[in-house]
């Protein structure tokens, strides 16, 4: 009797959650309860990381320091030009009277070392709505786009990676501006590009960047490089796969990006 009742409740929960997304509040509440568990599971990994940082020898630290110094120098060199280019771009856009949406503010979040369903590609972040994280928040790492936030609770949030089979990123080919979608393949190191015809101008090695269409991801960030193209004349579309640039499995620190225009409105 009670079982039948609970089955009915569950089915209605599933419909409400899936169709209307009314239950984010309940999920957020439950997430707060679950967070200590996730934190506890993550703790040994965090301690190990802390220990390896603190117990590093002087020589390795010096070596790392000089490497970082070199890296910073080259990055700063690149930035010199970037500032000028950005203001020029801005000026040109205002001449054309087209607005450019700026995505500026960045927050560093840490991934908790916890597992989800192995068939979904999701990660848990240690930042939540208390830090201003919102649903659909774009997630990047130092190399490219990682994914977007799916569920937010006050202290933590879970994000879906671009390789999840139910995820798609609007991208464009950096070389010629050809726009398409990069859909997750369910394989950790692969994206599918299913909607390009056989005669599309795309080559192996092409860089795919976010196009900014769909208004979820900031435009112009690297997503993937095209790794293989198969053109079968009997098929309407080419079979194209791409390798994500972000280190999906290896990063611990990720970046959350805010649109700057939204800050101005607030």
């Amino acid at each position, binding site marked *: 009797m*009670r*079982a039948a009742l*609970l*089955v009915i*409740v*569950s*089915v*209605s*929960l*599933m419909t409400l*959650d*899936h169709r209307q997304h009314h*239950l984010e509040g*309940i*999920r957020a509440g*439950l*997430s707060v*309860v*679950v967070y200590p*568990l*996730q934190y*506890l*599971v993550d703790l040994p*990994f965090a301690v190990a990381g802390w220990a390896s940082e603190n117990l590093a020898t002087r020589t390795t630290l010096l070596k790392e320091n000089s490497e970082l110094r070199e890296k910073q120098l080259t990055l700063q060199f690149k930035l010199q030009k970037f500032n000028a280019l950005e203001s020029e771009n801005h000026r040109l856009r205002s001449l054309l009277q087209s607005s450019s949406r700026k995505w500026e503010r960045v927050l560093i979040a840490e991934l908790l*070392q*916890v*597992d*989800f*369903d*192995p*068939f*979904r590609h*999701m990660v848990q972040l240690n930042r939540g709505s208390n830090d201003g994280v919102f649903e659909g928040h774009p997630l990047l790492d130092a190399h490219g786009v990682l994914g977007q936030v*799916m*569920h937010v609770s006050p202290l933590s949030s*879970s994000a*879906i990676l671009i390789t999840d*089979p*139910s995820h798609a990123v609007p991208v464009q080919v950096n070389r010629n501006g050809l726009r398409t979608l990069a859909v997750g393949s*369910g394989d*950790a190191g692969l994206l599918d590009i299913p909607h390009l015809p056989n005669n599309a101008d795309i080559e192996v090695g092409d860089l795919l960047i976010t196009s900014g269409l769909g208004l979820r991801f900031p435009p112009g960030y690297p997503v993937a490089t095209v790794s293989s193209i198969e053109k079968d004349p009997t098929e309407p579309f080419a079979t194209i796969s791409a390798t994500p640039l972000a280190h999906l499995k290896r990063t611990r620190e990720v970046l959350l990006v805010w649109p700057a225009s939204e800050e101005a409105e607030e």
Partner: protein
Amino acid sequence: MRTVHHQGGWIIFLSFIVALMLTLIPLPDWAAYLRPEWVSIVLIYWCMALPERVGVGIGWVAGLFLDVIHGAVLGQYAMTLALIAYFTLNLHQRLRVYPMGQQALVVLLLILFQQLVLIWIKGFIGESPESLRYWLPSLTTMLLWPWLFVILRDLRRHYRVR
């Protein structure tokens, strides 16, 4: 006559907490598909051993937390765990006198049933896993049953959970 004296509830609570944590612990890629359904077997054990204490309701709540942990649509694990509890409660008297091997087979059937319902729901939502590896956890859970049974039984006896 019936002076049922509940005690040791914290052991039950703790076993579910540990099961949830084991569900969260990161495994290497090759083992991720083998992760046993920890919460399900802990629930099966308690429903069998203490049917008057652990039942459909507790299973449902544990399932709801499992939904949040898996980032799944709310209610799918809750529903399957409530059903598992329901079947185990119906079977508990027979299950208790079965030899270990036969118990493990029943566990296999229960977990297979759970996975069947889950894949059915996931199919509805449009995120059904297209790999036979999806069914592996039922096997690992079955293999795990004898050990888990002994551990939880000893815990129950030692702390006189009633």
